Every structure is written in C-alpha cells, then in structure tokens.
C-alpha cells in the first residue's frame, strides 16, 4: 500500500460564522481521476483551494504524500490548478503563458522552447504559439490553461469547473480529452464540478458533497446505482423517489404493494425511501406490469421518450421509454428486483458501506 498523495484528516474550515467544511476525511491515491461533485456552496471549491494552498484550515490536518501541508506556501506545492475562468495572463501571448512556470524557475531558454512546444502539441495548439490570449476562442483558452498547468509536471492537477464556460458539444469533446490526458500523464486529477454527467463520465471516483460535508464517495456506478440518501439520488441523475417500508430482508412495500428487492440488513418494518431510475422502468401492458400508471405527458428527447405518469396514489413517475406511448392511456411498469434501491433515513456512509458489504458478500 503506497502513501496516498493527499489525505484530509478531520478538516474543518470556518469563514467567520459560516462553516464551509465539516469534518472532512478522505484519501486520494496516485494516478486516479477524482471528482468533487456538489451544488454551489457545498464546499468543493474550498477543498480545492485548501489543497492548492489559498485557504488555511481551521482545524484538522492535510497531508501531501504523508507530510503535513500546513506551512507550505502555494508556490512551493507540487500542485497546479486550472481555474474556472482559466486566469490566463492577458499581457502574455500563448507561448509565454505556457512558459510562465518554467521561466519563473529560470529553466534554460532552449529547454523552455522545446517543453512549451511539446505541451502545446499535446493540446493541439502548436500553430497558435504567438497569438495573444484575447484572440483565442473559449476552447482554445481552455487548452492553453491545461498546457500551462501540466508543463510544471505537477503530482496533482486541480481543475475548478474548467468546462463550465464552454458550449455543450465542446464540453463533451473536452471530457474525452481530459480523461485521455490524465491516463497518458498518470497525474492525479481532482476535478470540481456541479455537473453530474461530467463527473460520471470522467471519474474513477466521485465525492458527492453538500453543505460542507462529503455525503458519499465511490465509483460512478456505485453512486449512481446505490445512492446513500435522497439528496444523492436526486442530484445524480433523474430518479423516482417514493416513501416505503422495509417489511423484511429482500422485501419492500411501497405504493401499497410488496415487492421483492435486493436490499437487506435493516430493521423489520423500518420506514425507508425507494429509488427507481427512469431508464429501469419498462413500459408494458397493464396486466403484465408490476405497477399501473396513467400517462400524463411525454417529451421526445432524441434517444428516448421522457414520459411523466401518475399512479392511483398520485405519485409522479418519470419513465424513459424507447417507444412512444399514448397520452392518458393506462400502462404497466415492469422492473426487476435489482432495479429497486432502498435508502434508509440518516444513514452514515460508513454504516451504509458496512451493510452493503454484509449481504453483497454472500
């Protein structure tokens, strides 16, 4: 087991009376792509700035490769940041922006020349080296910021919502490029975003944050399939969340019916919330369905139809269907026991993981 590149131990941060970080604990391993995902004000940028050295912590310890970071100023950390608005130097051209970090450290001129051109080649900008920054498009500026950050060969690259200013098509292209770049360089990436699609697409591991606390961490698949609570389920992707009761292990009751499910380890008759993802609901005839709902409206989304329907108890159901349905018609919904995900109220992440371990190991 190697030492983690970054470790947070019981980190708290106050800005005046406002607590921005609440007892943050995590470890980041070398060479992985991490995302900090959460709504604005959730503390994800505060964590990033703490690692970069622009924030101090109120209490707790931050370790970099096992050594405390507390008294290391930002310019002495082997960490580089890609800022939200890129923060490129407007008085320098593309080449000099990328060369900034090297010229600061008095690297010989000819070495700077080759390394800058290599970095620009990596982001496909070698022809624009002598351009001014304000002559570049948003996507090109983004690439300059990436080249400027990776030329210093940091151990850790921090990305503060770097794609949020780009249009959708470009954003998707950049997601592939960033992921590919990370794998090629083998640098640890910490990516801050409020866009769950971005986080799911690129990350090895996601930390979901809200109100200064980490709610859940895990692989994108884990977080999507087994959200720990209502907030995570709702924030990550679209979901149908209904109240229910855990009758016994592997049996849950909601909307007045009992269903076989894949969850266990809770008290009998414990009140719970049940998550069903829209794409896990299959439209069928009323007699074959486990649930019968009436279609209210549908929208064509290109690759699927988004159907909104209501059951007899007026619960709203969101369904992704490949085929169109008739409006106002009664349809049946079919789902497998594994499609049901049961969430307990106020369950801590450690308890949640332990419980999953307990019955998934069987």
């Amino acid at each position, binding site marked *: 087991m190697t030492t983690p590149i970054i470790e947070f131990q019981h980190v708290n941060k106050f800005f005046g009376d406002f607590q921005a970080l609440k007892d943050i604990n995590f470890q980041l391993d070398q060479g992985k792509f991490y995302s900090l995902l959460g709504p604005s004000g959730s503390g994800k940028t505060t964590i990033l700035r703490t690692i970069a050295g*622009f924030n101090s912590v109120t209490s707790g310890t931050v370790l970099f490769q096992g050594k405390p970071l507390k008294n290391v*100023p930002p*310019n002495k950390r082997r960490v*580089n940041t890609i800022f939200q608005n890129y923060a490129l*130097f407007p008085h320098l051209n593309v080449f000099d922006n990328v060369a900034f970090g090297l010229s600061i450290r008095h690297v010989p001129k000819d070495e700077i020349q080759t390394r800058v051109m290599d970095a620009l080649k990596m982001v496909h900008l070698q022809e624009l080296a002598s351009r*001014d920054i304000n*002559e570049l498009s948003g996507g090109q500026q983004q690439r300059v910021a990436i080249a400027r950050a990776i030329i210093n060969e940091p151990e850790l690259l921090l990305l503060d919502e770097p794609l949020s200013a780009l249009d959708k098509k470009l954003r998707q292209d950049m997601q592939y490029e960033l992921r590919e770049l990370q794998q090629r360089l083998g640098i640890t990436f910490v990516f801050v975003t409020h866009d769950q699609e971005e986080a799911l697409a690129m990350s090895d591991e996601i930390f979901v944050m809200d109100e200064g606390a980490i709610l859940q961490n895990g692989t994108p698949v884990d977080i999507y399939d087994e959200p720990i609570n209502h907030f995570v389920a709702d924030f990550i992707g679209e979901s149908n969340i209904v109240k229910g009761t855990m009758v016994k292990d592997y049996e849950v009751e909601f909307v007045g019916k009992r269903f076989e499910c894949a969850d266990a380890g809770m008290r009998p008759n414990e009140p719970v919330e049940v998550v069903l993802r829209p794409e896990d609901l299959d439209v069928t005839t009323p007699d074959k369905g486990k649930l019968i709902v009436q279609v209210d409206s549908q929208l064509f989304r290109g690759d699927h139809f988004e159907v909104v329907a209501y059951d007899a108890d007026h619960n709203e159901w969101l369904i992704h269907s490949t085929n169109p349905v008739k409006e106002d018609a009664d349809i049946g919904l079919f789902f497998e026991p594994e499609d049901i995900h049961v969430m307990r109220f106020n369950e801590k992440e450690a308890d949640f993981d332990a419980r999953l371990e307990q019955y998934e190991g069987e």
Partner: protein
Amino acid sequence: MQRKNRLGRVYLVIVFLVLYLPILYLIYFSFSSGSTMNTFKNFTWANYRTLFADTRLIQIVLQTLLLALLSSLIATVVGTMGALGIAASKRTSTRNLMLSLNNVLMVSPDVIIGASFLILFTMLGISLGFGSVLASHIAFSIPIVVLMVLPRIQEMDHALIDAAYDLGASAPQVLNRVILPFITPGIVAGYFMAFTYSLDDFAVTFFVTGNGFATLSVEIYSRARQGISLEINALSALMFVFALLLVLIYFFIQVHQSNRTKRNKQKARNAA
C-alpha cells in the same frame, strides 16, 4: 434630420473656435513686428530670434521640464505603491478612509496646498528653491497617480494572482511579472497626468519657489505684470506645436495597434 445635423455641426464649430481662438490669436501675433497685440504690423521671425537668444527663459523651460519629469516620476513610484497598498488593505473601512484622505488632497484648492507647504517649509527651516518646489509637486501629484492606478488594480481578476502563485512564483515575481504589467496602462496614464499637472501648476509653485528658481508659469506671470512681450507668444506657439505633435504621434500609435489586433482576430476567425 438634415437641419438638426447642421445645427449640431455649427455648435461644434463654435465650441472649438472658442477653445482654440485665443491660442491661434497668440500664435498669430508671435509673427508680428509690433510690440503689442493691438494691431498686426509686419510679418517677422524677430520674436523667435529674441526667444532663442533669451538664455534665462530657455533655462527656465528646461528647468520646468526637468521638474515635471522628475516630480511625476517619483510621484508615480510612490502613488503606485500607495494604490497597491490601498487595494491590498483587507478591511473596507480602512480602504475607504485612505481613499477619502487621498481624494481630499485632489479637491482642495491649490492656493491652500501652496500656502500650507510654505508654512511647513518655513517652520522646518527648509530653504525655498528647486528642492521645495520638487517636494510639493511630488506631493500634489501622488493622489492623481493613485486615482489613475487604483481602478486598474481593482479591474484585475484576483485569480491571475492565484494562478501566478500556483505556477510557482514568489511574491516579488508575482508583482513584477503579473501585477505590474497588468496595471502598466494605469501607471503610464498616471505618469502623464502628473506630468501635465506639474507643467501646468502655478499656484503651488508660486508659494514655494525661492529667488533662484522659477518655473515657466511663474516666470510668465511675473513678466506679464510689466506688459507681455511677444517673445512669450513665440514660446506659446512652439509649445503648442510640440503638444500637437505628441498628440498626433499618440494617435498614430493607437491606430497602428488597433489595426494589428483586428488583423489577428480576423486571422483567428479564418483559422477556426
């Protein structure tokens, strides 16, 4: 619409006439062979010849320029540091207090500033001369520089400073390589403003200047009391032409620069 346009043009012409006629009038009489500005006699270069022969006046012109260059240079250095200090102050109340103290000096009348400097220098026993004038010019130029530089600092995205630290720069390197280049336009503007204020100043200089030293404005004032000689007209004409040349050079530099950026932007668009 047509009519309105013509009225506007007439108005503009009148405004510029009012602004420029006195100067043109002065220049016109600089070529007159008479001794007063009542009637134009014959065309002559005589006034220019006496001007160039008047070593005292030429020396004063050079002194005035030297004073302006020196005082605005020092004021720019001090004022820029002051602006950086004001911008860096953490508490808004401190910042506002310092800015208000700065602005009070900007709006208080020159006569009061001049008189107070005179009192200060006499109390401290400092002899009046080049030194006292220089010190007072520096003092009244600093607030101007602060006012020109401060907006530029506040315009600057703080992420640029973070980025520089992030890339490994030390505090002096951040100042030299990021902050100063970014605020240079403000510094240059502040320098030129201070320069013109110093060239212009009469009231403050009049109070604090001694026997051995005079600036152009003080000298012209003392000569005008004995009736103005047309030599002064010649000097005004030369200075006007000089200023005009500076403005023209500045204009062509600007045109050249904006053309270049436009061309490059066009290139960028074609490439994309």
